[in-house]
């Protein structure tokens, strides 16, 4: 129970420190309102820029450019531009001005009709893999559909030939009829497109994502103030004094952890409630799941701050290492920019940060609306990381007694 008294004392000290109070609770609130207004959160969402090059000018190309890319279902998702030449499209991709270019080569339509092998080129911008992924998906669904119909047509034609129902001199006519039928049936719009990334994970609205990122960014920041609090205790010599009483280092560590946890949890709750009320951020359908995910994240953040404190040999070290760790976590952990827009290497690296897992947990709740059981993996990873942080901290603290 001593850890609880340590936590309560820490909270008392924290609450009396008016500037800390402002930093921890008021600033995030103001930031949400300011950022929300600036980014016009209430309206914006994920869009992909696509550049089309139609070198074919045939029926099939028109299906793709008009019935698919210009379809009303995709109007919210896509910003479509058309350029006349492949070279121009390549330049746009290279300059990063478009998410992907779709090039329909000359002879595409006739190739499809003749049943020969044809292909559409998708040039993805590596800096925006998600946009490229979405566009590639659309084109792939289209070509898969075309292939299916090509197959259906050739089977039908072979059947016609074998049955002898059509005399050879009328065969040409019959084949054209089948192909025309298959082509028109495409206009019924059975080409379905899902908003998916290459990995097949659904993407949340930008607004929702940034709310998660913001909450986690502040969590890291708050955890870092926990480190500062521990250093303050060292400067005030109160930490040593506590250690001359029958109080173990583990209890002190736990007390500090609980203190940070309470503050971070308060802040997290405030951000969730505020973004929900002001910007209708969709935190998912399950309140318990959001609470569990938030608690696991906060615990990992508090654990991280304890670790930084324990590892630093001097207060000076800790006060420079703390912000550095916070920065790495913010950059890598998907709080500053979305994990689904990261280059592949960064995406893999980010798995080492608890924030990345936390982002995954929250966005999965947002997109899939699942319950606690749907986020067991990210919660488990966050808790495991918290446990590792605390274990190492305790080892280091005990080793420091030399």
């Amino acid at each position, binding site marked *: 129970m*001593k850890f609880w*008294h*340590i936590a309560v*004392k820490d909270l*008392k*000290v924290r609450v*009396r*420190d008016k500037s800390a109070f402002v930093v921890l609770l008021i600033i995030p609130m103001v930031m949400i309102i300011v950022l929300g207004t600036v980014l016009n959160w209430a309206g914006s969402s994920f869009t992909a820029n696509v550049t089309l090059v139609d070198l074919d000018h045939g029926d099939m190309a028109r299906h793709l450019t008009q019935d698919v890319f210009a379809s009303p279902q995709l109007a919210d998702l896509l910003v479509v531009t058309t350029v006349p030449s492949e070279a121009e499209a390549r330049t746009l991709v290279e300059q990063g001005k478009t998410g992907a270019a779709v090039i329909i080569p000359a002879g595409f339509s006739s190739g499809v009709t003749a049943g020969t092998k044809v292909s559409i080129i998708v040039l993805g911008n590596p800096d925006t893999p998600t946009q490229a992924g979405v566009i590639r998906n659309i084109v792939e669904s289209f070509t898969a559909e075309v292939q299916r119909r090509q197959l259906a047509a050739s089977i039908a034609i072979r059947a016609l030939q074998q049955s002898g129902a059509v005399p050879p001199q009328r065969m040409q006519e019959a084949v054209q009829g089948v192909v025309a039928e298959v082509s028109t049936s495409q206009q019924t719009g059975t080409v379905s497109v899902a908003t998916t990334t290459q990995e097949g994970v659904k993407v949340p609205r930008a607004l929702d994502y940034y709310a998660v990122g913001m909450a986690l960014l502040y969590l890291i920041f708050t955890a870092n103030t926990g480190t500062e609090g521990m250093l303050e205790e060292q400067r*005030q*010599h*109160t930490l*040593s*004094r*506590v*250690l*001359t*009483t*029958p*109080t*173990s280092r583990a209890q002190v560590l736990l007390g500090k952890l609980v203190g940070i946890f309470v503050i971070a949890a308060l802040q997290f709750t405030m951000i969730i409630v505020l973004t929900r009320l002001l910007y209708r951020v969709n935190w998912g359908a399950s309140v318990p799941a959001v609470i569990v995910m938030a608690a696991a994240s906060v615990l990992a953040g508090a654990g991280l701050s304890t670790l930084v404190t324990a590892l630093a040999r001097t207060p000076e070290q800790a006060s420079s290492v703390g912000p550095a760790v916070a920065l790495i976590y913010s950059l890598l952990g998907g709080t500053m920019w979305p994990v689904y827009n990261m280059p592949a290497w960064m995406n893999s690296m980010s798995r080492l940060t608890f924030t990345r897992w936390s982002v995954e947990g929250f966005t999965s709740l947002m997109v899939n609306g699942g319950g606690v059981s749907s986020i067991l993996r990210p919660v488990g990873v966050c808790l495991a990381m918290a446990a590792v942080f605390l274990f190492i901290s305790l080892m280091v603290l005990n080793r420091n*007694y*030399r």
Partner: protein
Amino acid sequence: MLVEVKDLTKRFGKLTAVNDIHFSIPAGEAFGLLGPNGAGKTTTVSMMCGLVAPSSGDVVIDGHSILHDPMAVHRSIGVVPQDIALYPTLSARENLTFFARMQDVPPSMLTSRVDAVLDIVQLADRQKDHIETYSGGMKRRINIAVGLLNQPRLLILDEPTVGVDPQSRNSILETLKELNRQGMTLLYTSHYMEEVEFLCTHIAIIDHGRVIADGTQRDLRLQAGNKDIISVQLVREADGAVRDRLAALPGVDTVELRDKTIRIATDQGRSLLAGIISALDDAGCPVSTIDVKEPNLEDLFLNLTGTSLRD
């Protein structure tokens, strides 16, 4: 013995801050650890309360080894660190209550213990004020009060009067003397000779990490061979007969005569003054001035190390 410090050594890299120190303190004693800045007092005390791990050696307090059962040691001791170790934005009462909880004071006794120590340091009327509003002397008194909360068998004080005005210092020393009289064992470190002389029955003098002298105040003076020196200035020069007459007085060890000055070494100090003056009168040698210098620990330190205790 309540405290046994056994061959305690602490090295920080190449520096040996504490070098094979050993001493013991019987229950009820006021033990002084006297030494200049950097002598190793704080390092010794830190090892005794488990904040610094010894390079070698051990400390046994109330039958418990600090190496093997630090929690048991922590229950027997109260610690007053050299630096003020209090939460500035909490009130005195909040600080005391928090530390009392850390010291395992039973919840039912929290209030009474906090009240009691506030009375001892005479700050009950300021208990609700935040520590940051206190004067240096008041902070020192609360710093001491924290060490008293668990009614420790041994109270360890590391230079508890540093930076305190003379009046507060006297009040602190009187308080400690009273606590000792009531039976609390004290370990008191200081570089102020007067404080240790006033408070402590037993003293260890420490320099460069070593105990260079150890004993009761009387022992230490004898150990250095120091005598009280009575210097007499005469109105005119005296002769050998006067010197012999003085040397014959009971209690006088040696007499030196040079021109108009006589230096008498003795163990009995002031009690001899009357006898000396009347003897000189009888010899027809009127006294101009007379001065007694009692040897102190400062002299002993000077004798042993060739340097002064103060820096």
